[in-house]
């Protein structure tokens, strides 16, 4: 199948290096300490952060740092063909773990000893790149909860189809069987914190694709920064003195 037509356009009309439309919104779950919605095209994710709060299960309490937990769940209606999956299947467990480890690396856990931070991500619509969208949503939610972080974490994926590196794969491109590279970076520190790839790629192609994904991450980072800064300014001027 042709994923990039001769004019150089992808199935949904994007150019190979073009990202889908991003949209982020802070404060969607009023009860949570921090929450956010993040959309990448048709992929839509809600993240809610509870904590830092008292550790619920005392045996898990850490005396020198915060306990970070994460649960990823998909709504029944999130995928094209409706499936009712049991909670905690392998894929969800794996993604929960990936998100937890990625976020934990950025949170200054040592500042909140003996406490617990819960990150819940709920996929409302899945159209490729859910992992990335979850991480971006979780970053926004953590920042909204006022949890100190070394740096923002942003994520984006890239793939390689029809001999072209493609940024931010959607579901159709993702399931085409080509390589899919998901990268998470700490933009300020300029470090990669997450790197996952399915399928195989030539070493030099891989570098190109990964570089493309990193560029994507940076674009996401500048968007997220913009939202956070705007939000902070709003909160501050509304509060007044």
């Amino acid at each position, binding site marked *: 199948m042709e994923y990039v037509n001769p004019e150089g356009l992808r199935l949904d009309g994007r150019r190979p290096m073009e990202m*889908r439309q991003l949209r982020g919104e802070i404060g969607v779950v009023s009860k949570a300490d921090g929450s956010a919605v993040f959309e990448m095209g048709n992929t839509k994710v*809600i993240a809610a952060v509870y904590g830092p709060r008292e550790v619920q299960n005392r045996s898990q309490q850490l005396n020198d740092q915060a306990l970070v937990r994460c649960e990823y769940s998909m709504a029944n*209606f999130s995928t094209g063909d409706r499936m009712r999956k049991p*909670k905690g299947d392998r894929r969800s467990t794996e993604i929960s773990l990936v998100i937890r480890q990625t976020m934990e690396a950025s949170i200054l856990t040592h500042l909140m000893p003996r406490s617990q931070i819960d990150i819940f991500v709920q996929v409302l619509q899945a159209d490729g790149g859910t992992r990335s969208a979850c991480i971006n949503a979780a970053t926004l939610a953590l920042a909204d909860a006022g949890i100190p972080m070394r740096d923002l974490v942003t994520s984006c994926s890239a793939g390689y189809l029809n001999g072209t590196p493609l940024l931010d794969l959607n579901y159709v491109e993702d399931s085409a069987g080509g390589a899919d590279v998901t990268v998470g970076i700490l933009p300020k520190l300029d470090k990669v914190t997450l790197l996952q790839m399915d399928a195989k790629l030539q070493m030099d192609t891989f570098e190109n694709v990964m570089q493309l994904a990193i560029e994507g991450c940076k674009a996401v980072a500048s968007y997220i920064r913009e939202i956070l800064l705007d939000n902070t300014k709003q909160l501050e001027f509304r509060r007044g003195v």
Partner: protein
Amino acid sequence: MIFSKVKGVLADEVLDLPTQCPSSRTPPPPSPVTVQPPASSPLDFEVRLGIAGKVVKRYSFLIGDPLMVGLSFGEKNFIKGGIAHDLRTDGRKRLTYRPIFVETGVIPQASGSARVKMGATDVIASVKAELGKPNPSHPDKGKVSIYVDCSPTAEPTFEGRGGEELSTELSSALQRCLLGGKSGAGAGIDLSSLSIVEGKVCWDLYIDGLVVSSDGNVLDALGAAIKAALSNTAIPKVQVAANASSDEQPEVDVSDEEFLQFDTSGVGRHYIVDATTEEESQMSSAISVSINRQGRICGLTKRGGAGLDPSVILDMISVGKHVSEQLINKLDSEIAAAEACDEDNEMDS
């Protein structure tokens, strides 16, 4: 996706249908989904949804473990006193609802969807239609299944399997109200309108609810969301006809579901509707009634363990009927507003 199944069932009649990819970047296909057959198709699949319902619900609901929202004795007494004096903690009267906020078309991949907010309670409902085989015992009817999920974003205790108990309870309460008796009588959704070829093909409607944030009265919010989602739903009407008048807009059929909640507080002598989490924690029992436009009862569930005098139940039903009329009107106008807004957005994009 939906249509791939047709091939298996109706291979003789159906040749090809466009599969709709969950496309990216470009704005999602507006729902109602217009399914346009390719010009080469000898058959025209024109599409129309048939749900003709009539239900109204009212509901009440006790959430989780009361310890979760433990209130001190003074606060409990304050809530009870408020109910007795007809002035609840947020200033509402016993039979006043919180403002309801409806948004339709939130899940573009679904046949219909809606999001409803009442105070801090926030739920999403989606309707998906798939082709399936009718149940041999009811060959002339389609099938509807309802599932509710409680997201841990709403309440950390819903993590893992923590939300399952509540999910089951909500699902079965909604099923009871929407699906009617086993014969299909009194259902909120007219199952026979979902039939395509008797005994062979019918629509399977999957109604999924998701609780995103909870602050009491989740059941009512879900009911309202399902009603809004159904009125937002357009299902292809499958016709075996040869001409291709494909640019005809599919018609959206509305099911007249209404839901309304009804609680009794622990005080016992007064009833309240649309309880917040705190009020729910004080309810010893509650009655959820679903009432349709004609004022008939289409489902009832008692919630909470404490016993109630039968006359009290009948009394609550009559109060519920009274409140339901107002709620139906309120919801109707909210849904109409949401759909107008939804259409505006589509035109803009």
